[in-house]
């Protein structure tokens, strides 16, 4: 198939403002979604549970951080804290209101995280850049400390571990808890991630997204043309934390089913930040590519020697894995500092001219 937009005319601003103005892109996305919905659930439980679930969960977290850092330009290291906030809020909501629909539980968890995000976003009104990143560390450490210290958050469980109660959608299809099938969990996570990605794409192409980018690119000029810095920055923090909160709830309820606060410590924040940087700052697609890179590559590296028939001791593999992983991160950042999404875009532009570049 030739990737070319020649002959595809846009005759209205509605068409021109469409999500995928190029027909080939539209078809590509439809095929991808069909594969994700129908073909992937046929795969083994190992693939679904250890590869696709963490990928989808982390992609949602990366979307959240990308809204804040990639679009609104506010550097944050509090992602893990906001994820923990969402996970525990979902747990408290689900146990306090056993009849509440799981979708509403997730939404509620997102809203609680959004409020917490606004609170910890207040320093952004005064400071920016690395200083803001350090200030958001407060969210990371304070939230985890609070969740570990106050037994009310874990319903006085002595181990400090929360276990996701089983919850169903559409009557009897369990999507969380121990009884849920991997297929149901995967499809539910896929639906949440796809809807949130669509919403993020829509947000970033509207007035609100443009005001985020204006604050990111030149905050003084943005204010002088009428953008309210406070509302815009806090709005970005709220929506970003909403996404991170839902990612945390997905982690606790869909991916692991039982979790303690330490699952969301500072290394989780860095992990999400690397996903956003490697995937591409200011790109929805980049959030998914970055999540795929960070989540899938270690698994691939771990299994690669076995696949090609080499038998290497497990501890050696672990070391090699780290070395190759680090080298690949450096390689990609040197080749394309704007991330995998930019590489993809360059590839598409090359393809548009192929085979007659001028």
């Amino acid at each position, binding site marked *: 198939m030739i990737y070319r937009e020649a002959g595809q005319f846009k005759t209205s601003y509605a068409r021109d403002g469409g999500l995928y103005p190029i027909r080939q892109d539209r078809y590509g996305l439809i095929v991808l979604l069909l594969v994700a919905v129908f073909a992937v659930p046929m795969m083994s439980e190992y693939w679904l549970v250890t590869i696709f679930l963490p990928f989808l969960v982390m992609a949602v977290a990366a979307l959240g951080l990308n809204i804040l850092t990639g679009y609104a330009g506010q550097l944050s290291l509090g992602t893990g804290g906001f994820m923990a906030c969402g996970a525990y809020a979902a747990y408290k909501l689900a146990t306090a209101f056993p009849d509440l629909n799981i979708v509403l539980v997730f939404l509620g968890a997102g809203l609680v995280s959004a409020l917490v995000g606004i609170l910890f976003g207040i320093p952004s009104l005064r400071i920016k850049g690395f200083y803001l990143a350090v200030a958001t560390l407060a969210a990371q450490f304070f939230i985890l400390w609070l969740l570990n210290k106050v037994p009310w958050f874990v319903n006085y469980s002595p181990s400090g571990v929360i276990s996701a109660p089983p919850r169903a959608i559409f009557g009897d299809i369990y999507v969380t808890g121990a009884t849920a099938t991997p297929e149901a969990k995967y499809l539910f996570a896929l639906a949440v991630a796809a809807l949130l990605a669509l919403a993020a794409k829509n947000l970033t192409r*509207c*007035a609100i997204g443009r005001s985020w980018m204006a604050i990111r690119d030149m905050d003084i*000029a943005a204010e*002088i043309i009428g953008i309210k810095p406070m509302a815009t920055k806090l709005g970005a923090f709220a929506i970003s934390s909403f996404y991170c909160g839902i990612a945390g709830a997905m982690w606790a309820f869909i991916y692991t089913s039982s979790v303690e606060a330490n699952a969301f410590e500072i290394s989780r924040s860095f992990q999400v930040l690397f996903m956003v940087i490697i995937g591409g700052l200011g790109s929805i697609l980049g959030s998914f590519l970055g999540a795929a890179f960070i989540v899938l590559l270690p698994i691939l590296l771990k299994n690669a020697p076995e696949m090609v028939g080499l038998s290497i001791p497990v501890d050696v593999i672990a070391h090699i894995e780290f070395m190759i992983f680090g080298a690949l991160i450096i390689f990609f950042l040197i080749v394309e500092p704007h991330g995998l999404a930019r590489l993809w875009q360059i590839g598409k532009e090359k393809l548009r001219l192929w085979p007659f570049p001028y």
Partner: protein
Amino acid sequence: MSQAEASPAGPAPGEVLLKVDNISLSFGGVRALTNISFDVMKGEIRAIIGPNGAGKSSMLNVINGFYHPQEGTITYKGETRRKMKPHQAARTGIARTFQNIALFKGMSALENIMTGRNTVMAHNPFTAAVYLGPAKRSEIHHREVCERIIDFLEIEAIRKTPVGRLPYGLQKRVELGRALAAEPEMLLLDEPMAGMNLEEKEDMCRFILDVNEEFGTTMVLIEHDMGVVMDISDRVVVLDYGRKLADGPPDQVRNDPDVIDAYLGVAHD
């Protein structure tokens, strides 16, 4: 006020849109502005000139609320204000362009101009997330307005180009478009023609005069090219070392001995 009076849709002459009264501004020990007073009539093109460091840009920053003067008052549309944030000033109809281009580098020309309409667009995250419906209608409506500005400024071909890739003259034009998108009553232009070649300067002059004539927009402009200033402005304020030297129509200012001294130096004889 030849331009303003020539157009049928022109404003009523003699109506004061902006009045600055005894403005004094200092940064620590440095006095940037001292007792500056002047007024801007509705619909006129008002130039502020002066040597480097005279306080011209500071004056614009005071007008749109970026600097807060220690003394003096600003009366805009009959309302006297003391302290105002820049985004509030923007909402009262004051737009500006910058001496060093201040476009949003990560966005296309069209997106930059659309961002200029933020004061009249809704920022509802819920409708924006769904997109279909109110957000889409609003996007299309404002896109139409922006496309008229793009037509007017003759930048159709570059509307989807990231502004970082554009040459300097076009960036200045996109910046003017972004300011116009807010449909301002008063437009502050900080050296709109700096660094341009003759052709680009002529284009920019034409756009300034056209905007003034078609939309009746009041202009306050800072410019170093005396030929341009004398040709297009209705009245000129001259600043030097933060003080007002002269104020009046171009011909009067041109022959003012103080102004000649400030620009050419005083003869010591």
